[in-house]
């Protein structure tokens, strides 16, 4: 009764994004657990495929431990983590579940969680179950759910209703499968799927909103009317934080600077600004996906600590007068970044000009203001003023300093006669976990409880119930 109109039923809230997964209890203001959505996968040798499950799991764990011990000198902590972190699952190779392949199932081991996946293992592939906001790899997703409910929240799923968020353009099949997963595998008593854009709008306290979500792999603009997503107004493009990181990487490469992640560095000593790093590397052969992920982490850190958005139109002269910011890569190379640090986020606003070496798809990217404007323009004219008055900014990629100011400026410079009001929570957690927060709010409302899909309804109607009750 703490909140107005609230009625806590101890629901769980799970939001699986492209980069981060957030899990927690409804009614709280921060997720209990935030961990990367990416999972690690290690193929196990074929000979392990004999005997029963229990033996196998022991085998694999032992094997892992020996691998770690043999290959990494300082991997004692890794072995420890492994003991409770790893998971053995029957796994068909590749993402899709193909029945024909089931016979030749390879056994493998999943690693979920920040500590697990960032630890170097030879042959560990990193993959994300999500692509374009849609679930692609169901086994990996199951691992994530397992990790969230059993390892992190450590709760009994049969006791809590579950609400999850999904992208606004999620397909029927995926939602049905999610429902199946929730009821068949985890036996949740009640379940609900909510659109992340709607949840973000709720987190900002708005029934109507134009939700601008810029995340790791994509940027989307979704109009929300009274808690309903307007499908015709959804605009998205796969221009997100990863593209920016990739651009930074390219930039480094062009300057003949190698981005070496921490896991490869054994010893380093300080060097003068702009000089080649003086570093001793470890011999740690890793899969390309793992190496890429670790590189991306470095670049992510680079973006967080250096990059900034120009307040108004990008102006090289003005930018050059700004103070430079030093940044040191893990291998000791350091440099003072001036205009470069403004150019990176500028891609979000003007991809045509600032995106280097674009692929065929990236050629068609439009700036974020244009995307927002197009989305609003595709809605009814009577509704547009409301949309412009309730632009809600969310997603980690919007956390560049000056991003909100710039966006506001840009939206105002497009000719229209609406009053633009931008809602961008200053709280970083709120901006990163907007959709989770909305789910947390909604699932703790007394009036919401009539909307749950109950076990009984699922049994009566089947998984298609989700498309009837959650729109």
């Amino acid at each position, binding site marked *: 009764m703490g909140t107005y109109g609230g009625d806590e039923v101890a629901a769980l809230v799970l939001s699986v994004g492209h980069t981060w997964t957030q899990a927690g209890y409804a009614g709280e203001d921060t997720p209990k657990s935030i961990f990367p959505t990416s999972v690690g996968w290690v193929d196990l040798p074929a000979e392990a495929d004999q005997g029963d499950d229990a033996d196998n799991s022991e085998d694999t764990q032992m094997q892992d431990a020996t691998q770690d011990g043999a290959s990494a000198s300082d991997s004692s902590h890794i072995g420890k983590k492994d003991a409770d972190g790893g998971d053995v699952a029957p796994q068909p190779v590749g993402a899709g579940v193909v029945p024909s392949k089931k016979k030749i199932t390879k056994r493998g081991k999943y690693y979920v969680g920040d500590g697990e996946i960032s630890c170097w293992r030879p042959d560990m592939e990193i993959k994300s179950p999500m692509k374009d906001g849609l679930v692609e790899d169901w086994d990996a997703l199951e691992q994530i759910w397992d990790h969230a409910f059993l390892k992190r929240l450590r709760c009994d799923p049969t006791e809590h209703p579950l609400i999850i968020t999904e992208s606004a353009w999620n397909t029927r099949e995926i939602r049905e499968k999610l429902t199946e997963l929730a009821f068949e595998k985890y036996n949740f008593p009640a379940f609900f799927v909510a659109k992340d854009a709607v949840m973000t709008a709720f987190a900002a306290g708005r029934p109507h909103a134009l939700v601008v979500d810029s995340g790791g792999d994509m940027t989307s603009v979704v109009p929300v009317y*009274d808690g309903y997503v307007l499908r015709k107004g959804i605009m998205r493009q796969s221009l997100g934080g990863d593209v920016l990181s990739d651009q930074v990487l390219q930039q480094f490469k062009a300057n003949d600077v190698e981005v070496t992640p921490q896991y490869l560095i054994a010893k380093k000593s300080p060097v003068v600004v702009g000089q080649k790093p003086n570093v001793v590397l470890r011999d740690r052969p890793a899969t390309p996906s793992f190496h890429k992920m670790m590189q991306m982490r470095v670049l992510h850190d680079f973006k967080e600590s250096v990059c900034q958005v120009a307040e108004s139109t990008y102006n090289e002269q003005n930018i050059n007068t700004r103070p430079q910011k030093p940044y040191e890569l893990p291998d000791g190379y350091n440099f003072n970044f001036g205009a470069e640090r403004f150019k990176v986020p500028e891609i979000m606003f003007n991809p045509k000009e600032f995106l280097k070496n674009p692929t065929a798809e990236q050629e068609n990217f439009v700036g974020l203001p244009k995307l927002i404007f197009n989305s609003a323009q595709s809605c009814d004219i009577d509704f547009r003023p409301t949309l412009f008055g309730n632009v809600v900014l969310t997603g980690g990629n919007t956390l560049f300093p000056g991003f909100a100011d710039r966006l506001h400026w840009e939206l105002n410079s497009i000719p229209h006669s609406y009053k633009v009001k931008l809602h961008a929570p200053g709280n970083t957690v709120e901006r990163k976990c907007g959709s989770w927060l909305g789910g947390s709010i909604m699932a703790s409302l007394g009036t919401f*409880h009539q909307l*749950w899909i109950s076990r009984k309804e699922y049994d009566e109607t089947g998984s298609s119930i989700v498309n009837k009750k959650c729109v």
Partner: protein
Amino acid sequence: MATGNDVREIFQLKASDQVKRVHKTERKPDGISRELYGLIGNNVSTVAFNNPTYKPKLNVSKKAVNWTWRPFVNPSRDDDLILHHWEKTRTDPNEEYRFYKFNKSINLISFSPEEYTSHLKDPDWTMEETSYLWDLCRRFDLRWVVIQDRYEWPPQEADRLALQYYNGNNLVISENGANATKKEGEDTPMKDATAAVSGSGDSSVKTTPGVDTSTTTGATTAATTTAATTTASGSKPTAATASTSKTVANITPAKTRSMEDLKHRYYTVNRILTKIRMSDASQAVEKAQLLSSMAYDKNREIERKKNLEILNTRTPEQIEEEEALYLEARRIDQNEKKITRERENLLRLLNTRDIYGPGGPTSAGLAGQVGVAGGGPGTGIIIPSNSITIPSSSSPSASGAAGGAGGSSHSSANGPLSPSVGKGGAAAATPASAAAASGSTPKKRKKAPKGSVQADDSAPPTPTTATSGGNALKGSSSSNHRRPSNASDGPGGPSSASAALPPPVVKKEKLTPGAYLRSQKMTPIVSTKQQRVQSALVTLGLPFKPAMPTATVMAKWDQVQSNIVTLLDIKKQADKLESDLKVVKMRRGSLGSGSSGSSSAVASAATGGTGGSAGSASLGSNADGNFGVKREGTGDESGTPGPVKKKKRKE
């Protein structure tokens, strides 16, 4: 610590009583509240003390409220999902779930298949589509934006199922509500029938018939008498629609409709249904209210949205231009106001002159002498007042010009001249005569009744058109109509009229109380005009002051001076009009060939522009005609009126 008493002791002063009194507070008698006693008691303190408020101490003695973790069922759900929550230990075990009361659904007027076939047919809509729209309306509680967003006909299978599922459930609920609230059997079968219809629309692909059959069976049980017919009719279209919907699904691609389409259909159907059902006379008021609430003008909505669109897609340059135009318009408006004010001042000035009159200075002794001319100067004054009416009546035209957007090009061209803009050229032609006839001052009308009659012949003199009638035209028309009228009754009429009138001097003389100098009776000249008046006097070959200031001379002198002032004012007006005219002409030249209507209006304006001067001229001549007597009477006294008149004509 040293108190005030100690200090007093040291200085050997008498200990003050006051200090003591503070300590010696009397006990509050019982029966009076503390606040009241504080107000009326002995120790009224003038300063209110604000005691600092501290957080109230935790009341440990109070028993904590018990909370229990207990299961609950939400009656809003039609399954018995049991969730658990913490709640205060309740005394009443059967307490309803607190949030149940928030579960509201809208009431839609539904229709039966018979009603549809008899009243609601629309070439653009099938019954299935209409009921699909109804389903959507119910599903999204008439959120039109969402309905339009999700509208897709024919719907995808899954969508259809979902809707069916939702509305099936909903219908059961609403039906119960209907049964509970409305006692008539007439309503329930209708709802059931629609349930059957909506079911039938979907039934071709029905996978879960449970819901629908339950509703139809509900229908048969609920409606006793009419059930047979409704179910029969309900089942008939079922077969038909099942086949049609299939074919429709096969043939037509998914079509979307605009929100206006959807709304139009919804409100039309609702209106028709209301009309059919509320046939009782007793419900007339309610019906009218309902109908008016359901009014929807599709075309107007489309137009409105189109205009909004245009409004919102203006470029900054356009907005800037518009703003500039707006500012300009406001400036013009304000200028008009200023001019109007000036004119009013002028008019007032002239009127006061009228009041004082040139006869004013002619004091009692002169009254007899002025006798014949008594009418003369009095009416002589009317000349200016008449000529002034041109600008004065044009002052409303100023606002007209500002307001009239349609003909603004020529309205601004007309400038302050013609108020006829709004009325259009055709109207302007006829009221002109009326305007001319009805004149601007009632006095004038009295003076020339025949003129007005004549005008009546040509056009009905509606006062509005008279005042709003183009004064430019009035100018010209007055020259057209007025002159002959005056000419006709020229020699005899007006003079007799003026003779018949009581001498205005008597009426208008304002007697200054007490003793006064005669010089006080001289009309004062505004200091700003003094110089120009003097220069005019110089051109007339007159001295600044009369050499022999007798009463008669001074009366004349005063008249001359006031005439000069009037003339100057008129000249100013004429100059203004002429410059306006010039601007109009230039603009007209630049505009080239406008539409015929506007060009004619411009032409009229142009003539009006000249008419302004022509009008004054005509009035001048009019005055000639009218006051020939006066001229004869006064002409030889001093030569002044002559040149004055001449000057007037020059204008």
